[in-house]
């Protein structure tokens, strides 16, 4: 409701200023739209109405969410296979790097937004479980002559002793969550994992709920990235960490040319052959190009109120991990 009122008001404002816009250039237009600057981010000069990019297309904002939904609905079943094919399996390394950067202590709550098929959550649970066992072993080893009580506790502690790590997978797309649930059942990871349908721009959670918030390869599909960042800020506990794994700008020009060639020539073809869907994968590579680069995204995260924002480039900048803290 508020969004549509804003749309109308903005449209009225911008139409009234259109003549001045054309004469005096973009600077004044932006200063008029002062408070709505963040909404104008998707603006192309001289276009009216709120629109944003969908790959290299320009679409009205309301449409983008629907079209993204349709893309992922159609690719859901072959999503994991396609990931492996397109990235030659390297996406697993990227996700492992994200977990290493996260280095989660046992007993934390993770919100995996745009988690889809649950890759990050599965890794998180495995990581914390092995850390937990490692810590238990350390404890037993450090007490040189363990008392009968320690030994009894060690055997009795079947994950009901220390607070357990829990992961919540949130995705706007039911199909992706379905695929994820099936995978979880097959892998036997049932406990400590929940599946929630939700929009990253409007999360169905209370404030200060989670220790960790991750969004892996999802934030470029969000229509209003700033809103997603603010929601992340809201649901994180003080001291909580925001982590984003996303495709980014390659710095090396040679690698960039190779990467571009591969993206635009190979990936849609793979999409057609394996998943039978050229357009979705065309959208995917185009949306990567539309996403802001490392520094710009870092500034966006800082604007949302996160501190100690850093980014790590992986594979020469093809993928970047951004991290920020709510302090």
């Amino acid at each position, binding site marked *: 409701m508020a969004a549509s009122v804003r749309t109308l008001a903005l449209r009225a404002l911008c139409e009234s200023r259109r003549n001045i816009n054309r004469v005096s250039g*973009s*600077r004044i237009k*932006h*200063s008029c739209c002062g408070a709505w*600057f963040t909404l104008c981010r998707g603006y192309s000069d001289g276009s009216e109405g709120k629109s944003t990019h969908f790959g290299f297309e320009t679409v009205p904002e309301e449409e983008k969410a629907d079209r993204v939904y349709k893309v992922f609905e159609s690719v859901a079943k072959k999503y994991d296979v396609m990931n492996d094919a397109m990235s030659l399996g390297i996406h697993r390394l990227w996700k492992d790097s994200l977990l290493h*950067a*996260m*280095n*989660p*202590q046992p*007993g*934390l709550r993770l919100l995996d937004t745009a988690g889809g098929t649950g890759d990050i959550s599965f890794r998180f649970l495995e990581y914390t479980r092995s850390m937990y066992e490692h*810590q238990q072993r350390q404890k037993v080893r450090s007490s040189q002559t363990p008392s009968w009580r320690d030994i009894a506790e060690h055997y009795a502690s079947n994950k009901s002793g220390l607070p357990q790590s829990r992961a919540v997978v949130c995705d706007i797309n039911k199909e992706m969550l379905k695929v994820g649930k099936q995978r979880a059942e097959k892998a036997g990871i049932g406990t400590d994992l929940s599946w929630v349908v939700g929009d990253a721009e409007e999360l169905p959670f209370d404030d200060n709920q989670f*220790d*960790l918030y991750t969004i892996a390869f999802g934030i470029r599909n969000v229509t209003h990235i700033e809103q997603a960042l603010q929601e992340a*800020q809201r649901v*994180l*506990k*003080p*001291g*909580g*960490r925001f982590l984003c794994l996303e495709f980014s700008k390659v710095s090396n020009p040679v690698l960039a040319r190779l990467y571009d060639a591969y993206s635009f020539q190979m990936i849609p073809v793979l999409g057609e052959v394996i998943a039978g869907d050229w357009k979705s994968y065309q959208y995917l590579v185009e949306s990567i190009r539309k996403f802001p680069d*490392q*520094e710009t995204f870092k*500034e966006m995260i*800082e*604007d949302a*109120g996160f*501190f*100690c924002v*850093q*980014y*790590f*480039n992986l594979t020469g900048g093809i993928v970047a991990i951004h*991290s920020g*803290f*709510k*302090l």
Partner: protein
Amino acid sequence: MAALIRGLRAGKALRGLGSVAVQAKLSPQCINVRRGFHRAALLRLADDFKSESVPPPSYHEVHKGEESSTSSAQGDSFNTAAGQEDGQPNTSYQDQSGEHGEDYETEEQLQARILTAALEFVPQHGWTVEAIASAAETLDLSPASTGMFNNGAGDLVLHFIAQCNAQLAETLAEQHKQIQLGQAEPKKTAEFLRDAVELRLRMLIPYIDTWPQAMSILLLPHNIPDSLKHLSTMVDDIWYYAGDRSTDMNWYTRRAAILGIYNTTELVMLQDSSPDFEETWAFLDNRIKDVVNMANTAKQVQATGEAVVQGLMGAAITLKNLTGMNQRR
């Protein structure tokens, strides 16, 4: 345009920083100012890994000078800043820290607070990330905030060392002031060195059980530059307050001597089980005596050498006279 708005916000942030900077402590102050520049995105280059380390606060005068020069640079940017809204990060942080009732605090100050709190958990968890996580929990922060410390346990150890060195420098400065005011007797160099090293080593006593782990962390390749830096500033401080103003080779030899004494005494202390580490202090006494003796011996050798050379010269001239070669015809 985005840069313009960011610049305005940064200007406001800098103004906020500037007013609080006066109240903050000395060493975080220059970090405070540095953060202001970071926010203005003036000096921020695109790093991949940016780790924040606490610089060793050795000479207070140096830091004062730095702070005054940078605050004058701030003054210029204040005039240009219009500042419609408060620096967003500042206000949001204040809201969240409301329950602590504290004023604006920089990231580095918060990190320092977490690390100081983590020292309490070191006897239990060792010098590890778990100690930092437990500390974060006591400060009502999620354990996920340990990710702020890229170096993990290394950050904790380096923070502890920096703290100890700062304390040492303070105590030595106090003593120096006392001497200058005439309220205390100036000590002899050997005694002064002994007391300073003992004072510094006593700070390790609460953590002596886990100190071998800390030492091994300091020896990791990526930590060696920082640990050497801390060591050298500590040794420098000790000699400065001992009154060393040498500008020749002595500067190096003296610092090398104290470095050796300190390291060996530390190692002895690790395996000392006598009450109140008496054996360690006895060892320290002996080493200091050795160094003093060596210095004296060196002087003696030099003097003897000169005397011997002169004696030989005299003998040679006498011989020449005897054989009649020296006579002018």
